[in-house]
């Protein structure tokens, strides 16, 4: 028979399911579901993850989903995400969801709820329906489900014994629910609690006791009633804990010490606790030899003493982040460099006392460094980066923000020494100019992601060298006002693989560059043209005529672009998903054609 799909009838179900397992985007899966009834049935069998937003009738929704998708393992419910229905198009506030007619059916489902207000949020009945429908649930995420309580979570724990990962954010679940999870879910590996104001130490102790043998990852953020007592329980029962993440003002050294003592396999530690001091760090240094990732955030009381202990004890450290640790200085970083020679990622953010000497030590000892980020480091001068350039041959990513004393000399050193550089992001480093960028272009042939934002000494010369030497995929030159058509033309001719381009706030960029970009970069997907005063409809037209794969376009504050230009973008790029433009530049016809794709700049405050 002509046109008959032979292969579809020969392929067995199992094989088609295997193929569907390789589909990772919802769009692909949905497209396959629409092919025929058989594919619809098989796709539903192979779907393992569901993401649910705030619906008007969550219980009904869960029932439907449970009937349709029987092999679900991961459920992610986020009630901050409202579905924008056709009735309320354009208004995405959560309150709007309650105006749906479904409410009246479900007011009776919630025995404890009062009024139609709460029946639109997932309730305990909904959780129970979830557990009945998906007994093989492995990962559950409940985000801002303000209407569920211990009752629902207990029932879920009883039925979903294979639960591996639990993520509760902004839910008012109480201790009994969490204790029940500890009692029934013996395979629980990951727990994340954020803004869970109903939980106290009692519940968490039971959880630690129950899941102690399986728990690997534990995170607490802003849970007002969880204290050191919970951490002591974790230290006592969770011998296999690998990752701990704490963001809390009521946790003290005692808690962290207990975990350090009880969890020798700890690999990841992230601390944002204003009351934790060096004592805890020293303990971690001596008791956690397996530590691979350490992140210290905000207004800490850590000094070089603590960091030195880490350098001495945590020889396997690979990833170090120091953010706003005001008291840390070069001495501490020096100690880390000496002890942790396997360091691959380093981020120093706002630590105003760390200077170049510490960086030079890192350069001398840590030859495996692949990523370096220096943000708001006013004390670091060229010698620090030169040290890195000399020895860190494997550096792939360099990120500099507000390092006003780093100049061309340092960038040239990096360029010559780190030839494997793939990503270079520089923002507001006013001493860096064309000389440094030319060196990058001449030496770093593997560079694919370049971002030079508001570096007002960089001009066309730098971009010409980049165009010659690097095949970029992503380029951002926002605010570098010396750059004009000449530079962008060089990029257009030299980087055919370019998919992301941000040229916003460039006063000297005009239509010629746009035309060349259209010619040279057909793979362009995202472009930001905002605040470019010299680009007009003509240039825009040349660009979009050739760059038909455009996904997004931002063009606000471009006086040369009119409604005609906007209409051209809409008609030339069939797959465009987002356009940002002023409301008065969108004609009625364009509005009808493009609809939800267009976002308007909101000056009406």
């Amino acid at each position, binding site marked *: 028979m002509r046109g008959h799909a032979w292969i579809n009838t020969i392929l067995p179900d199992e094989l088609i399911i295997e193929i569907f397992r390789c589909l990772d985007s919802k769009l692909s899966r949905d497209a396959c579901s629409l092919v025929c009834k058989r594919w619809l049935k098989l796709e539903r069998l192979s779907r393992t993850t569901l993401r649910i937003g705030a619906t008007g009738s969550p219980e009904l929704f869960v029932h439907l989903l449970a009937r349709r998708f029987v092999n679900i393992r991961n459920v992610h419910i986020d009630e901050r*995400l409202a579905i924008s229905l056709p009735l309320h198009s354009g208004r995405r506030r959560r309150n709007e969801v309650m105006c749906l007619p479904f409410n009246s059916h479900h007011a009776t489902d919630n025995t404890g709820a009062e009024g139609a207000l709460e029946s639109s949020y997932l309730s305990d009945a909904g959780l129970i329906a979830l557990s009945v429908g998906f007994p093989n649930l492995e990962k559950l995420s409940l985000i801002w489900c303000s209407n569920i309580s211990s009752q629902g979570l207990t029932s879920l724990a009883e039925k979903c014994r294979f639960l591996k990962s639990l993520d509760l954010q902004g839910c008012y679940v109480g201790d009994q629910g969490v204790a029940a999870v500890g009692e029934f879910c013996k395979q629980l590996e990951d727990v994340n609690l954020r803004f869970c104001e109903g939980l106290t130490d009692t519940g968490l102790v039971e959880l630690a006791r129950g899941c102690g043998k399986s728990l690997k990852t534990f995170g607490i953020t802003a849970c007002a009633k969880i204290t050191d007592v919970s951490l002591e329980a974790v230290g006592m029962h969770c011998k296999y804990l690998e990752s701990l993440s704490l963001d809390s003002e009521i946790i003290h050294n005692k808690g962290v010490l207990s975990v350090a003592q009880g969890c020798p396999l700890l690999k990841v530690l992230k601390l944002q606790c204003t009351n934790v001091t060096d004592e805890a760090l020293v303990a971690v240094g001596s008791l956690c030899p397996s530590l691979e990732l350490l992140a210290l955030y905000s207004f800490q009381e850590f000094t070089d003493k603590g960091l030195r202990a880490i350098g001495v004890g945590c020889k396997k450290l690979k990833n170090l982040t120091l953010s706003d640790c005001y008291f840390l200085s070069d001495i501490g970083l020096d100690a880390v460099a000496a002890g942790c020679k396997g360091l691959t990622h380093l981020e120093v953010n706002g630590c105003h006392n760390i200077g170049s000497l510490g960086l030079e030590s890192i350069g001398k000892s840590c030859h495996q460094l692949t990523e370096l980020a220096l943000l708001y480091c006013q004390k670091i001068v060229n010698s620090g980066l030169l040290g890195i350039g000399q020895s860190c041959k494997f550096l792939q990513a360099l990120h500099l923000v507000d390092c006003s004393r780093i100049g061309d000399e340092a960038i040239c050193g990096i360029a010559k020494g780190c030839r494997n550089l793939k990503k270079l992001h520089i923002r507001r480093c006013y001493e860096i100019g064309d000389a440094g960028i030319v060196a990058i272009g001449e030496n770093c042939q593997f560079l694919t992601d370049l971002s030079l934002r508001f570096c007002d000494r960089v001009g066309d010369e730098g971009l010409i060298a980049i165009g010659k030497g690097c095949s970029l995929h992503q380029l951002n030159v926002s605010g570098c006002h010396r750059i004009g058509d000449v530079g962008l033309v060089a990029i257009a001719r030299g980087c055919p693989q370019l998919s992301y381009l941000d040229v916003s706030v460039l006063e000297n960029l005009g239509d010629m560059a746009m035309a060349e970009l259209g010619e040279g970069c057909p793979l362009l997907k995202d472009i930001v043209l905002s605040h470019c005063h010299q680009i007009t409809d003509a240039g825009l037209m040349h660009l979009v005529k050739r760059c038909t794969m455009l996904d997004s376009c931002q063009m606000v504050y471009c006086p040369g672009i009119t409604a005609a230009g906007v209409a051209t973008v809409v008609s030339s790029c069939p797959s465009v998903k987002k356009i940002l433009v002023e409301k008065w530049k969108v004609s009625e016809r364009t509005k009808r054609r493009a609809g939800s794709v267009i*976002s308007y700049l909101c000056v009406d405050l």
Partner: protein
Amino acid sequence: MAELLGPRLYSCCNCRNHVALHDDIISKAFQGRHGRAFLFSHAMNITVGPKEDRHLMTGLHTVADVHCVDCREVLGWKYERAYEASQKYKEGKFILEKSKIVRDNW
């Protein structure tokens, strides 16, 4: 189906740099140099200039101009000190002029 509900942000009118959160607005009824202005409890990605004494409509204040950190456009000012008891609540807070900021709908 759903779009990620991020925090509602205000950006610099000159360069799209994010400077404030909608949640940090304390009042929308202030008067700036060029028209209406908002009082924010926090501002981000801004630099604070030198302090000066100014006579504003509500009395003598020590203020410091606030600039966008990227394009350095003056967006408003920060109240460093207020000399009348009824104005003390403004200390440490930021005025951003309505004409200098846009709401980020992206």
